[in-house]
């Protein structure tokens, strides 16, 4: 463990100034991931800049008909916010399927995006891991990889991004508002997380001196036909083996618009516009769902322990689309798969 100094940021500008002047500093929000990483010696910032008190805690409607979520809004507050519950229930359900109540109370919206992989080797500093120590090798490829990725992997890394919330955000085509020394910019959620490629040490396209200030949701919330289904090794409080966010806009039986994203299978929430295109204009039935699944899973590759994820993902996609079409979304309090 590395000792660190602690400082509070007064406002966003101050946070940026502090991080820009100290390359070994890190922001801390809820701390639910970062503190573990520090304790495991995976990360060793010498300075923690506490941003949890910044006034980024509101959930507001936007002029464009969407919603702007402050980066410091706790996961729990977001999931229970009336605007989210009513207009973006897919997001609410995805958040509620993650972690535990205590963790969701602490975890922030911004931190959830930047949380790191749960790959076992990443947390064990005695083993090689390219993400932790570039060039040291990937222990997971031939190792214990039940929880690792099947899509978008590289020879350097097969880690997944573990967030549930981000899978829903990807399906809803959220945008990430960030601010840095050079000003503010907006990154589409699809471009926020990266694939591992040759640089698995970089999870996201956020610059080290940038801060996430908000997440913006566009107006379309798919609140009538949606579902978030998370398949895991126990029925709650476990990371996804595979999760599916499905959102449909239906006209009778016909799919007018569709969104489909996977979690637990790749270094980022996994989407394919082709898979969604193939659904549009089709009847919402098993054969259409199967075609979408095949496209979305195209090129999937197992690494031994996680081979089953390919077939599991296919069935989970079909089930979730069915739940969405029927208007019977999965709920985390169900204690069963609908």
């Amino acid at each position, binding site marked *: *463990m*590395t*000792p660190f100094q602690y400082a509070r940021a007064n406002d966003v500008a101050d946070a940026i100034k502090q991080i820009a002047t100290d390359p070994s500093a890190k922001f801390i929000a809820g701390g639910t991931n970062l503190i573990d990483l520090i*304790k495991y*010696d995976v990360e060793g910032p010498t300075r923690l800049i506490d941003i949890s008190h910044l006034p980024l805690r509101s959930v507001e409607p936007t002029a464009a008909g969407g919603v702007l979520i402050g980066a410091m809004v706790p996961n729990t507050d977001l999931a229970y916010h009336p605007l989210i519950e009513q207009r973006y229930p897919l997001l609410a359900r995805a958040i509620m399927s993650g972690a535990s109540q205590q963790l969701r109370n602490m975890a922030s919206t911004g931190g959830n995006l930047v949380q790191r992989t*749960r790959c*076992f*080797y990443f*947390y*064990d500093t*005695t*083993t090689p891991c390219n993400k932790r120590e570039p060039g040291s090798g990937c*222990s997971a490829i*031939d*190792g*214990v990889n*039940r*929880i690792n990725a099947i899509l978008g992997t590289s020879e350097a890394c097969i880690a997944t991004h573990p967030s549930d919330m981000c899978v829903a955000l990807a399906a809803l085509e959220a945008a990430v508002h960030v601010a840095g020394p050079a000003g503010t910019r907006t990154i589409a959620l699809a471009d926020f997380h990266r694939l591992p490629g040759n640089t698995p040490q970089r999870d996201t396209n956020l610059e080290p001196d940038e801060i996430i200030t908000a997440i913006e949701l566009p107006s379309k919330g798919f609140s009538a036909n949606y579902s978030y289904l998370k*398949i895991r*090794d*126990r*029925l*709650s*409080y*476990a*990371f996804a*083996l595979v999760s599916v966010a499905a959102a449909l806009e239906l006209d009778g039986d016909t799919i007018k618009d569709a969104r489909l994203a996977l979690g637990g299978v790749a270094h980022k929430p996994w989407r394919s516009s082709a898979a969604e295109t193939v659904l549009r204009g089709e009847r919402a039935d098993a054969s259409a769902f199967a075609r979408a699944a095949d496209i979305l899973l195209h090129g999937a590759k*197992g690494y031994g322990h996680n*081979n*089953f*994820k*390919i*077939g*599991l993902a*296919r*069935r*989970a996609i*079909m*089930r979730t689309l069915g739940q969405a079409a029927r208007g019977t979304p999965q709920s985390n309090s169900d*204690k*069963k*798969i609908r």
Partner: protein
Amino acid sequence: MASYIGSATSRIDGRAKVTGEARYAGEFNVPGLVHGYVVESAIPKGRVVGIDTSGALEVDGVIDVLTHRNRPPMADNDDAYKDEVATEKGSPYRPLYDDRILFGGQPLALVLAEDWESARVAASRVRIEYQKEPHVTDLHAQRDTAFAIDTPEKPRGDAGKAFASAAVRHVAEYFIPTEHHNPMELFASTAIWDDGRLTVYDKTQGVQNVQKYLCGVFKMKPDEVRVLGPYMGGGFGAGLRPQYQVVLAVLGARALKRPVRVMLTRAQMYALGYRPASIERLALGANSGGTLDAMTHEAIAVTSQFEEFARNDTGWGNLLYKSPNAKFEHRLVKLDLPTSCDMRAPGAATGVYALECAMDELAIALNTDPVQLRLQCYSERHQGEDVPYTSKQLRECYRQGAAEFGWDKRNPQPRSMREGSELVGWGMASGVWEALQMPATVRIVLTANGHAEVATAASDIGTGTYTIMAQVAADMLGLPIDNISVKLGDSTLPQCPVEGGSWIASSVCNAIANTAREVRGDLLKLARRMKDSPLADAGVDDVALTDGKIVSKRDANRAVSIASAMLSDNAERITREETNKVAEDKSHARNVHSAIFAEVKVDEELGVIRVTRLVNAVAAGRILNLKTAHSQVMGGVVWGIGMALHEETLFDHRFGRVMNANIAEYHVPVNADVHDIKVIFVDEPDETVNPLGIKGLGEIGIVGVAAAIANAVYHATGKRVRDLPITLDKVVQFN
């Protein structure tokens, strides 16, 4: 006055626990406390060639770093390290003793600092140079190296031949992976050094065991070492043997002549003991009438390179079923791991899992109902010893469990029951454990104000020992339970064995009865000496203590109050110490039994398994406290669900390391995994097992549960999964 024994009395220590008043080993703060942080080995086998502690010593607040090179002296013979629970064969591990690395996560240095955080920071700056040696940690890869050990169960007849000629046969291998106890409380010890005397607060299931061990390891006299552990946040067997942190804390305290606390992290606790992974082979042969002709149970289980730990995995069939031909074999594989150890129902949780799945498979082969098969094979006598049981209400367990569950509505055909997208399966299994008793001594101090203190060196590991002792003492002394205080977890108290094997309740409660009888005798003596005593001619067994009085059993009007009897002699207190009588008698088998009925629902496409209903009918002699007993069995059932569906310590054998050494990734059931659990206690009066008829309950709750669930999963899906845990990818072929 109503009897406390048998009632659903709430825990007398409940308030202290929920308010934080109850202190655990890592919570005793003393002025000048030093914090120790363990540096573990990054490799599973080899030698320490160099340790550079200079970086650590530079950290502010660091006082010293102990290694095998500069630690205070320790004993150099195996005997000194053999605790009460040590394996018969082998050399116990000696913490921080020399340069040899025997397992991954082994402690190699102890950083001592003024605060925990500094110690932790410094620990990551200790540089260790290793000389690696090739290691083995995979049971499957090493199974050919297995060697047989003596098992208590002897062969009968010719099981091989009988199996070969049996009309119906079932043979299969079952596998249970390594599991870790994961008690909520982290292992911790606080050692206070006071001019040659040592007081240690330790997380342990046996304060006297630790006390003797420390005397041996540090060559100290018994009166120089006191070990305390008033509360424990879960033990499950992990705290039976002294764990290494207690040695490290004492080393630190001796080196610095200051109080030292060593608390392990969750991850470090995966380098303590574990339930050994085991491969269990069952070969059952039946005649066409559906009774067993041949039973062979062979186990191959894991131990360390330096000790031979084994429990009875294979003998349980001898207790449950008749079979003229039987053979049992236990083999061990030595791996570069810590020594495996007891974990709830050691041997039975694993062995009975395999046996009861095999019986289910045999029932299917015979086309017989699984309960019916068990009744057909039911044994009225211990088959190995050929003796009757002190009591065995297992038939009633089957009957009441089946009735409560609604077993008669079961369609035996696999995949025959469904509900929406889920396949429904019903499975059952038997459970069995021993009703053990060990010698324990209890002291009672009765004071003239009608209060009594009951004391023994037992540990309450969370099961409710404080409470049942207070109940029994209250009844035996005729006092309200609020007037009883119970003292446990202090090595200076009267002798008591480690808290394990489900023997504490029977041992200490029978000892209370014996001690209370002596107290009663003393009171009667005083009462008889009183002027015009109504009890002048009564003997000790003619009177009872009731409602604060010494009362004639024949005539309730003839009574003397305890207070007046004591006052008559100006007696301020009566102190007595007695031990329970442990029968050497081999004329009976002493066991507890259970029948478990489980319903699972399995999502047909996705393989997600839910245990939606479970009935556990237990026959375990006298139930002392319905509330704590119920919790105890329910906890066992939940653990059984975990064993069936979730628990597995994942190794990367290339590195010889545990990969999921944390409770986010080492899965145990959470609320969402637990549905309806019904616990039935079947009436089982038993005056032979011991005077109070107590059999113990700690282990039985888990035994058989995983088998019932596995059998239900088969019934639901038609897919037999023999390797635990049963995860969704094992029940559904996805690709």
